[in-house]
């Protein structure tokens, strides 16, 4: 069953077309990667879906209901959660309090929010960090906290924006385990923007590729990796011309 349907989504910024007529669907229970070179429009697409940017044209349907023109907090309340690439914490909230903010979306009670936050932190093996301010933590831990916070709001679909950027190989390994856990064990449908290919190609069932705001490919990771259009987008026209025979 389709959980998210994006129909002909276009987003212009003052004449710059950041997303150009993009359509795709996500099924319940999928784990889909969204890749593309820098500036391809991946984060813009996430921002449009989550309601942060008003779309220029097109429709977004989530869980059977149109969410195209909803405010970001209304989209979130329907069960569409997300993380942000650059997370700037002013340092007022501890890790546990951060996750509680997410939990408060589903309950008014501080006690319930607190219990739920502790569960999530234990589940993601973050309990030891509960009392620290987010700003005191290294990047890898901050990324895990943003995922824990998003999980607090109990989403059906979670959009992850570059949760592995800037991490070392062992940290990437940890993040991958967490993403798989969120998807496999917690039953959350996941879409992730990622530049770290080892991660995205390994965990994704399916990959969507953007370049210059357009969807240029979609399919299984292995197939997409061999697609000349995708290689051209990443490595340039010349590379394809000179090494073209490899891909035939």
């Amino acid at each position, binding site marked *: 069953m389709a959980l998210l349907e994006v129909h002909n989504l276009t987003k212009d910024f003052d004449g710059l077309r950041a997303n150009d007529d993009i359509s795709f669907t996500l099924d319940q229970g999928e784990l889909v990667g969204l890749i593309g070179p820098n500036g391809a429009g991946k984060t813009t697409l996430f921002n449009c879906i*989550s*309601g*942060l940017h008003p779309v220029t044209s097109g429709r977004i349907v989530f869980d059977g209901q149109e969410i195209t023109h909803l*405010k*970001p*907090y209304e989209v*979130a*309340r329907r069960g569409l*959660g*997300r993380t*942000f690439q650059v*997370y*700037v*914490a*002013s340092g*007022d*909230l501890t890790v546990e*309090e*951060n996750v*509680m*903010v*997410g939990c*408060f*979306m589903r*309950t*008014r*009670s*501080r*006690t319930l*929010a607190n219990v739920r936050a502790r569960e999530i932190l234990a589940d993601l093996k973050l309990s030891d960090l509960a009392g620290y301010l987010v700003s005191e933590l290294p990047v890898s831990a901050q990324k895990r906290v943003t995922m824990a*916070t*998003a999980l*607090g*709001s109990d989403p059906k679909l979670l959009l992850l924006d570059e949760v592995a950027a800037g991490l070392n190989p062992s940290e990437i390994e940890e993040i991958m385990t967490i993403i798989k856990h969120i998807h496999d064990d917690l039953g959350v449908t996941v879409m992730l923007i990622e530049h770290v290919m080892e991660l995205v190609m390994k965990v994704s069932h399916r990959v969507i590729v953007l370049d210059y705001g357009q969807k240029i490919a979609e399919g299984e990771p292995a197939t997409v990796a061999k697609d000349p259009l995708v290689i051209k987008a990443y490595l340039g026209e010349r590379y394809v011309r000179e090494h073209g025979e490899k891909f035939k």
Partner: protein
Amino acid sequence: MEALRNALDFSDFPRIDLIVAGVVATFLVAFPLTPHSSFAMATMIQFLMFSLYGMGWNTIGGYGGQVDLGKAQYLGIGAFTTAVMLIRWDIPFWVSMPIGVALAVAWSFIIGYPLFRLTGHYFAIATIATSLVLKDIFEVWDFVGAARGLEISPIKYSPPDFLRLIFKEDIYYYYIILGFFFLGILYVNWFRKSRLGFQLRAIKDNEAVAQSLGINVHWAKIKTYAIATAFVSLVGSFHACYIKNIEPEDTMSLDLSILIALMAMLGGAGSLWGPIIGAGVLIPLKSYLKEWLGAKAGLVGMDLILYSLIIMVVSAAEPRGIWGIVEKIRRRKQA
């Protein structure tokens, strides 16, 4: 029930804080029983009033990070509502105060709705503007006494009058405002742990993230602004009965708005004790310096320079004020 339990639960503070708070609370309760000058009494009442203004400011300005420089307009609404109702219709404080709060909150909705579309400095400037406009209106509005203001004449009543809050001795005013002071602390203690309190702190951190967690940022700010307004208007009503002579020029002045904000920031915005510490430092300093320097010609205004200096020094050391410094030292000790 959970709300009440949260209001009364201070267990997340270190023991030393609670001991200090207990000592201070005991002192505040016992103060009128000790020998004191009437000047000291007046200063203590001012301290309690400004602590409450600061607590109100702190909800939106501290926890929410929305710097509000227009609190005096709500003080004015509270003060004038109570004064007008008492003088014209002999309506007692306990009736006029909630009406004043309701009017102030209604006004805060009217200006908060468009103002919270603005962010950062624009919001701060806009709050100054609305406050000055309201003051100008009050200065030409005959119904509320225009620029002359209003005077509650104590001779008409037979003090102690607990309904109208008309007393001869300051000790009555002291204990009433002390009661509000303790209630204010309990309220903010609940607020900071409530859903709204958490949402506001998340908004201060990052509005986009807050929205992605289902928080209606605009509405959360408006609601909190109403809470801050209620605090200030309530004390404004008290101010009318206590001072008895109110003019727009001093109850609604920009100086007052800025003083409220500065005090809370000096003590520590976004913390429970911050506004109280700020008021505890600045109010005695301000009134004693004024008394001392006021007698010396040519030195008028020195008090303002001095407390500006203190604020500059403290905020250079730690933007989160005196309480921020305390917390910094504590964290360093832990590490």
